[in-house]
């Protein structure tokens, strides 16, 4: 190796170090981040399962297969099964309207979509009490026609739908804005009707973003506590969702049972996270503009 080469390789090493922080700072930052993740994310996760299984697998299973727990699971799934499709349809429609058309009041619509994010879930629940409670605006009429909304399934579904309202629209709007509407215009000029344009052009372009939105929406729908707590009335075996059931068990000092049911919610969250990661990765893969290959014009 000649003198010059040695010199140059020394410079290269220097340059590499110059661009990054000193090793101590790097390790310190990494350690801090790991500690934070450990204390605030991993530890609680482990604790939930540990507490749930504290009295053995038998107790764990008993807590989950308890009829009240079982009815809470069914109610949670039912509420999500209704709220998520509703918000999916609404979210796609809203994102489509906002990004593909110009109309009066568009900004207002965008702001309204965000409203459930802006208000506390408890307030969201209270809104429905004010509307449908016995002293609420529609209360007397509802009682006269013996229609139950509060402290019943409709109330829970309404509250869940309201709280999870923005997720799909919010994930789709930036995506669809970035994609523009040239492809839709091209499809229209080629003779496609509205449904064909949506089905064959728009939907394939947004499917991963849409899935991501649905997953987020579903995660929130299953885990929602505040708003549902206000409207449900906590009737065991009837209007208790999983998160409400966990609270009740906890308040009754049935820690193992509470954590057993809670662990189910955690499992749901973990599955959601995995699916979300896949969806995110897919979407990013599609959004990345592929580098233009060199022109090979053989004309």
């Amino acid at each position, binding site marked *: 190796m000649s003198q010059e080469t040695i010199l140059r390789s020394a410079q290269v090493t220097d340059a590499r170090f110059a661009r990054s922080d000193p090793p101590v700072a790097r390790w310190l930052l990494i350690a801090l981040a790991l500690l934070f993740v450990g204390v605030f994310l991993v530890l609680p996760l482990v604790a939930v399962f540990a507490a749930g299984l504290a009295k053995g697998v038998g107790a764990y299973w008993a807590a989950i297969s308890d009829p009240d727990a079982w009815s809470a699971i069914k109610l949670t799934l039912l509420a999500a099964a209704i709220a998520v499709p509703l918000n999916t349809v609404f979210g796609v429609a809203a994102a489509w309207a906002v990004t593909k058309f110009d109309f009066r009041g568009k900004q207002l619509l965008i702001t309204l979509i965000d409203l459930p994010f802006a208000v506390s879930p408890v307030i969201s629940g209270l809104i429905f009490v004010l509307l449908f409670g016995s002293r609420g605006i529609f209360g007397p009429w509802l009682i006269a026609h013996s229609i139950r909304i509060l402290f019943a399934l409709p109330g829970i579904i309404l509250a869940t739908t309201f709280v999870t309202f923005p997720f799909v629209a919010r994930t789709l709007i930036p995506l669809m804005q970035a994609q523009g509407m040239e*492809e839709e215009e091209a499809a*229209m*000029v080629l003779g496609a009707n509205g449904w064909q344009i949506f089905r064959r052009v728009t939907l394939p372009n947004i499917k991963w973003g849409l899935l991501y939105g649905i997953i987020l929406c579903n995660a929130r729908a299953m885990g929602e506590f505040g708003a549902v707590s206000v409207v449900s009335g906590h009737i065991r075996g009837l209007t208790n969702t999983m998160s409400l059931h966990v609270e009740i068990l906890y308040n009754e000092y049935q820690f193992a049972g509470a954590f057993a049911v809670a662990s189910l919610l955690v499992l749901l969250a973990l599955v959601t996270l995995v699916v979300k990661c896949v969806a995110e990765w897919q979407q990013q893969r599609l959004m990345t503009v592929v580098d233009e290959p060199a022109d090979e014009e053989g004309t």
Partner: protein
Amino acid sequence: MGIEVRGVTKRFGKFAALEEINLEVPTGELVALVGPSGSGKTTLLRIIAGLEAADGGTILFHGEDATERSPRDRNVGFVFQHYALFRHMTVFENIAFGLRVRPRRERPPEADIRRRVAELLHLVQLDWVAARYPPQLSGGQRQRVALARALATEPGVLLLDEPFGALDAKVRLELRRWLRSLHNELHVTSLFVTHDQEEALEVADKVVVMNKGKIEQVGTPEEVYDHPANPFVYQFLGSVNLFHGRVHQGEAQIGALNVAVPQHAGAQDMPAVGYARPHDLDVASTSQDGRATEAVIAHVRAVGPVVRLELTGVETGAPLEAEVTRERFRELGLKVGDSVFVTPRNLQVFVGDYAI
């Protein structure tokens, strides 16, 4: 199918994008809409396609009013500047799209679709990319796929919005020649928008020069280049030299130069501007008749078939641009700093003060 535009107006808020546009594109012609950005050319194209609604006026296809027709019923092909290919479909499916979305009873059988797509791929010389996805193609290839897709439905009119705008210079040049030869083969009525005057002059049968929402001139490339209707067209279609002077009863006095301008016979001592292209300037090292403008050579660009001289007028201080052949350049033995005498050969005189 010919296109006729009658009195089309379009405003975006207070901005008048198009003012009372009247235009006819005869069947089978290739017409270029050319103008600076913001001149309304793309808006006009989109209104013809139905992608934008005009505030007033009518669009006729083949003599039939199509103003209220949806874009999907206009039977036009549209090529976008950024291709707008369906990114999740293969090239084959992109081209087949227009046929596949037809109502069931009008839809050709699968075998016919395959045959048609294969024909089109052959036409745009891309037989080998059928199974690829748009992001795997180069810009030039993508635009050719977009063109094949637009032609698949056998449109009566082909509309192209800056079709080569996003491509680099060399591919641009190739593609526009190719477009010209394709048009000679297919004879589909075509209207294409460009901001590149060279492209318009080279490709089109007819050029429509637009500025600020109005049509300045319509004519063959020779007409608009050699006989521009006004200073804007003159300026827009190429480099130009300005000579300020006055016009009196059909005679222009520009510096020491006298030019007969019979079209301005009625002018009484009016300010006027004479325009001359760089290749219409005679450059000499001496002044024979004392009527030439003296100038100093500021820069010489001797690359290519002609030598371009950047000059500064001695009296006016104004920059001038002249083009001479290589032989002439050698003959004169010019270099930077030399004094030369310039005489415009083909001066177009416009009366009035045009601020450009």
